[in-house]
């Protein structure tokens, strides 16, 4: 499904209104982690990342991992500098007050899946 469908169905806040959430490829996978070394190693390319990690590095790591978007859960928000970098690089940033657990559950119910076992 499109990122836009996920955003509207789950009521996610769009932190990067400068970017369209309806353009890109379908999103079918997700990953939840606050350890960016783990995101680099394990997040599925084209997937969506759920995290409470707001350090600037999350943008570079998400781009390197080829992620479709990052959702900051539990009310966490990145600094404006990180947001601007994401806009510049075309990486949509989203936010929710829900916990990572709650949001991951709702995304799973929508049909998104994790990387699975290897």
């Amino acid at each position, binding site marked *: 499904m499109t990122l836009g469908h996920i955003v509207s169905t789950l009521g996610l806040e769009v932190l990067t209104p400068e970017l369209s959430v309806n353009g890109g490829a379908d999103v079918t996978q997700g990953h939840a982690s606050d*350890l960016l*070394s783990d995101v680099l190693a394990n997040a599925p390319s084209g997937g969506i990342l759920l995290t409470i*990690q707001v350090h600037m*590095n999350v943008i*570079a*790591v998400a781009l390197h991992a080829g992620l479709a978007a990052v959702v900051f859960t539990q009310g966490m928000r990145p600094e404006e500098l990180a947001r601007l970098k994401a806009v510049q690089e075309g990486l949509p940033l989203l936010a929710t007050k829900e916990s990572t657990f709650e949001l991951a559950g709702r995304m799973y119910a929508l049909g998104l899946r994790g990387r699975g076992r290897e």
Partner: protein
Amino acid sequence: MHIHTVLSPCASPEMTPNAIAREAARRGLAVIAVCDHNTAGNVRAVADAAAGIPDGPVVIAGIEITTVEEAHVLGWFRTPEDASAVAEALDVDAALPSAASRLTLSETVALVHRHGGLAVAAHVDRRSFSVPGQLGFIPPDVPFDGLEISAAGAARGKAADFAGHGLPLVSSFDCHFLEDMGTGVTLLEIPEPSFDEIANALGMAGGRSSAIA
């Protein structure tokens, strides 16, 4: 340069100021740094103990700071007062001494520098609580004074992985037990064991230098 006392919940109860000072002297260490989690509360006690024994080490006032990203950063300071001022600014709940402060990595390094200290990213070769572990890589815009390689990592040649950052590498044990003291060693070519000379060595100033043993 990274010794925990009993003030750190993870340290062995044997890590008392007297025992640390005696063990450092027995092993012939010229300098040690006391780096408890988010506190400098035992620095003076170790320094006093070291001053009271023959061949006691010079004790550098340190703190192992937990940033909001849960990355560990060592702060080394000229005086226990500088270290205490930084520990106070961290404002970490004394009931959870190794918990994260509210300061970001950049704010932490700036705070250490404001108090004249050196900021070293701790055990960068480890996955847990290290800057690369938490943040995927070492942010190039954070002005660290050095990177610490754990003793185990140094023994496995991990220092080479971090040589490309243009930062001095130091090695220490992240010592929680007396028997581990002095097993991770950084060699400093300095005329006297003092904070200022360590700072010179890390900055490669005035012919001073540092290297991992």
